[in-house]
């Protein structure tokens, strides 16, 4: 962690991540044109999660930071994931 603030990421990496995020935003919009039935929300959440992961890993420097922060972030994602899964035990079986 002590060295993390001094890590310099080339602009090229940021631009690539930006391009990926814009592309995925386009996919998020495009996918709404397809009827995916019960997995519609799961696909939307998955795309949003991948985009968030890119932001966390590169823009927020999790990749270069103490491993503990990555573990915490993954733990939080898993927790929210399970909460959403349990909620859908109601909606999918109603």
């Amino acid at each position, binding site marked *: 962690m002590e060295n993390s603030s001094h890590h310099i990421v080339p602009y090229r990496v940021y631009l690539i991540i930006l391009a990926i995020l814009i592309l995925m935003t386009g996919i998020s919009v495009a996918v709404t044109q397809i009827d995916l039935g019960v997995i519609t929300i799961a696909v939307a959440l998955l795309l949003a999660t991948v985009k968030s992961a890119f932001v966390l890993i590169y823009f927020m420097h999790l990749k270069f930071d103490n491993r503990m922060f990555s573990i915490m972030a993954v733990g*939080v994602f898993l*927790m929210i994931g399970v*909460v959403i899964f*349990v*909620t859908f*035990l*109601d*909606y999918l*079986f*109603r």
Partner: protein
Amino acid sequence: MISEPKHASEPSYLEYKGKHKGILAWILSTDHKRIGLLYLYTIMSFFVVGATLGLLMKLELIAPGKTIMEAQMYNVTFTLHGIIMIFVIVIPGLPAVFGNFFLPIMIGAKDVAFPRLNLLSWWVYIAGIILVLIALFTGDGPPDTGWTFYAPYSFKTAGNMLPAVFGAFVLGFSSILTGLNFIVTIHRMRAPGMRWLKMPIFPWTLYGTAWIQLLATPIIGITLLMVAGERLFNIGFFDPALGGDPILYQHLFWIYSHPAVYIMILPAMGAISEIIPTFARKEIFGYKFVVGSTLAIAFVGYFVWGHHMFTSGMSGTALFAFSILTFLVAIPSAIKVFNWISTLYKGSIRMETPLYWALSFIFVFMIGGLSGLMQGAVAINVHVHDTHFIVAHFHFIVFGGTGFAFFGAMHYWFPKIWGRMYDAAWANTGWIIFFIGFLSLYGPMFYLGLQGMPRRYYDYDESFHGGNILSSLGAIIMIAGAMVIIVNLIRSARKGAPAVADPWGGRGLEWKIPSPPPLENFDEIPVIK
């Protein structure tokens, strides 16, 4: 083993004269101890308001029909009682008061990680309270939805919902900031040598609580904003006429509000886990199991919210899943109770007021917990849902659990906070009156609920009259006990006999520094061996 810190060379936090004077020296202080007391004074002031509203409800229910208020006023009264007690008092409760005051001291730090953020938390908390109060005195009358703000009524009622909902939203920010502060403090500021498994139990419970505050509170924030969106823009999240789902509101509300029960009870369990070993003069039995059960409660507690919704129309699969998960959360809670009892076993027990509170905590918590386990079974839950049985159950947990632990912690740490001893005879008298009043107030509600008396009704059938008379008399007795306790504590804080550094023979770092603590707690950061 803890190396003895040197005697403090600084004035106590109560005597310290800084840049500001008078009340400004408190409301602008970034000292974690003063901020803890700011929360205490605010919480106790609003406890008087919330308890008065509760007493008025019990007076209304002392006889069938209208007694002292109309039905609409009764709806408003139980709504305000709930909002004040839950959002203003019990959720901040132990973490904000004793967590702020003792967390840094117990882990050997001079303050929390972000002292200014800590003060901001209190100011945000005050802003939230002001918004809730605005709801009372403006618009077309106070909110009447109950503290749960259930949709669709919450966006259809004429009551002044928006300030109340926004107030609860703002109060949530205070909770998040405190949780964030505690997590960073515990990770980064433990004294040298205080490894994770050498940390006292109370900070462990604050750690579990802080994660819940951080992760669950944003969900209620967004949910309350959605309610505001429904009222202002008619969006249709929860309105079936617009394709929305009212049960979605219940899911979102309880995804936060059930873990919030653990925000209330985990620090209470932490305080009890400090009191019992001190007065049994033993180390706590099964330290690692107590720590593990704390984290297990915090974790499993996220996934049991659906047991509040067994009659809402959820799927059978969800009923089954939530029922099993609810039974699971009882296991770590029971581990704690076994560990407390085992700590007492063959201990050299010293009966003092904090231990009376701790023992009565175990008694009422067991009744509250076991009656909660009953409701984990869908068949029983459907029968007692929205009856007085539920009111009895959650008061045994929230008031009997958190409230008793709060008063126990108050007496336990009183000598450290104010540097004076309380009057033990009056403290014990207050406790026994309060305990008898509590059981008389909430005990009959179990019976009334099983007989079918619904909650949130200002009127009832004559057959419920006897239980309600006993319950209302219990409320009066309990309020009398609370007055004895509070007056004794206020008087003792001013005129009690001076306290020594360690009046109870405690083992934690807080007992190694003078009473009251010096400004920065330790002259030198202690080293834990």
